[in-house]
């Protein structure tokens, strides 16, 4: 990660663990859900970093932990060199002006008793950014920016469609002129024809306002379309990180390969020809995640060592990182690795010595 200076946000070994209530009965050890378990990740200023993974992998928790909507258990979140994870609640509240979130469910994330005008002006009032006519003008500007008419000011959220409500949520996030936005499944609840509208809107706003996004989604097609780089998460860990183009063209880690091959392509000719990697079983529970590589229980390439050694995220190709002991910079293609061999083991021990 040579562009250290350009990082807007640097996440260092972030962990979010939830103790399960009532599980310490009869003196047993308490169960802990390791939703995010040691994530290190840089988000560069001006980029859209896509974060994909299946439900329960911890991607939303990671997004929320960056903004401290969920408290991290340990680790750092550096925003312009300042560690957000260690700020006081009051100091963090000040910082939230620069860091905003758009939620998945546009039905649940807007207060039904507030008008659109009130919803969008609330953050402006909280941070005392404008008053009176200036505030009114700002709210109108914001609505127009997201493609809503200023006529809607006095209306309530239930009078809007899903796509329009998501636009209101976006206007609210933009009200404080943030630098960074976590978009947590912003299009998952929307109709196909509306998804394209919201993706285009987010992309236009990013260019106009020089925003930086963490775009969280389980929809790989959408993530690929909007992202500059993509991080793949599995059971609380980042398992692959690369530029969007290369991660889709040449996924390295077996989980990413399976994930990408599972996405149906809207082209019958492609669908008829392609080989789909169908994974066995479900995602294991994050309460007692598998030892070693967390994916080894479902991985068609797993060898014995995969159940013992936790693979580090290492650079396999330029700017392409993967966590898998069965590949290495010398042998990036797992298909070409000799059965039973784990070139990554040698590479990572060499790297830790250096």
């Amino acid at each position, binding site marked *: 990660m040579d562009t250290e200076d350009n990082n807007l946000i640097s996440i260092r070994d972030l962990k979010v663990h939830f103790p399960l209530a009532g599980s310490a009965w009869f003196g047993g050890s308490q169960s802990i859900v390791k939703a995010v378990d040691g994530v290190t990740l840089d988000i560069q200023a001006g980029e859209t970093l896509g974060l994909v993974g*299946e439900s329960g992998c911890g991607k939303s928790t990671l997004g929320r932990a960056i903004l401290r909507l969920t408290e991290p258990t340990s680790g750092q979140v550096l925003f312009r060199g300042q560690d957000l994870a260690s700020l006081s609640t009051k100091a963090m509240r000040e910082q939230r002006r620069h860091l905003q979130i758009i939620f998945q469910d546009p039905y649940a994330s807007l207060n039904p008793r507030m008008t659109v005008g009130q919803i969008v002006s609330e953050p402006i009032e909280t941070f005392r950014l404008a008053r009176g006519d200036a505030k009114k003008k700002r709210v109108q500007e914001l609505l127009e920016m997201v493609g809503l008419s200023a006529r809607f000011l006095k209306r309530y959220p239930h009078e809007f469609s899903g796509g329009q409500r998501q636009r209101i949520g976006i206007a609210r996030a933009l009200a404080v002129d943030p630098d960074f936005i976590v978009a947590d499944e912003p299009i998952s609840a929307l109709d196909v024809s509306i998804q394209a509208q919201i993706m285009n809107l987010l992309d236009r706003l990013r260019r106009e306002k020089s925003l930086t996004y963490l775009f969280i989604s389980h929809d790989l097609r959408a993530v690929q379309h909007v992202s500059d780089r993509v991080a793949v998460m599995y059971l609380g860990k980042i398992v692959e990180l690369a530029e969007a183009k290369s991660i889709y063209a040449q996924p390295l880690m077996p989980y990413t390969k399976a*994930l990408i091959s599972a996405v149906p392509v809207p082209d019958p000719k492609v*669908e008829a020809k392609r080989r789909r990697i169908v994974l066995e079983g479900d995602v294991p529970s994050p309460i007692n995640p598998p030892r070693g590589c967390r994916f080894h229980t479902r991985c068609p390439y797993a060898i014995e060592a995969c159940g013992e050694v936790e693979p580090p995220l290492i650079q396999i190709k330029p700017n392409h990182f993967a966590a898998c002991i069965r590949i290495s910079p010398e042998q990036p293609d797992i298909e070409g690795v000799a059965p039973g061999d784990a070139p990554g083991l040698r590479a990572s021990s060499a790297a830790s010595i250096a």
Partner: protein
Amino acid sequence: MEVTRLHLGHSKKEAREHAIRMLEEVGIPDAEARIESYPHEFSGGMRQRVMIAMALSCQPELLIADEPTTALDVTIQAQILELIKRLKSKTGASVILVTHDLGVVAGMTDHIIVMYAGKVFEQAPTSELFERPGNPYTRGLLRSVPDPAAAHGTLYQIPGQPPDVARLPGGCPFAPRCERAQDICRREFPPFVQLTSEHFSLCHFADEVYTESLKAA
């Protein structure tokens, strides 16, 4: 068990054995023990497998799968789609697959019907529909899906919102959002035009749209 006792006149014991066989068929591990489990003890993918087992337990000739994978993760979706395909070829049942995912229909179906505001807008064999759409709505849908080959850039978007079906405009229901709508579209309900022996489109300009698609293909 409920279904087969009712429809096939199974005894309790027969129904139980049949249910275990069905659960094995859809890939529930340890079916004999899991038959005692309650739905909340299963994962989403496993629950959908149980639903399929229930639906298939009386050897139906037609299976209607209404958004069977919409609530599931992609890797689990792949499992369920493979399962439906396998069972379909094994039992010879016909399947109506209801979905909003164009990727899913592309890989799973022989024929496609595109609906909008309660009407059939287009009907064609799958490859024909994807390669040579004869309706502006279908064409818009196909173009608004991100193309993995051409990442980034602005996506094609169909403007506006889906209509309130209780208060449809006169004329073509899609006219307010259609890029090629003319006066006639707002005035008169469109005809269901036959384009080939198996290809139909509900549009005043179906022939023109189809000709454009032929040229583009």
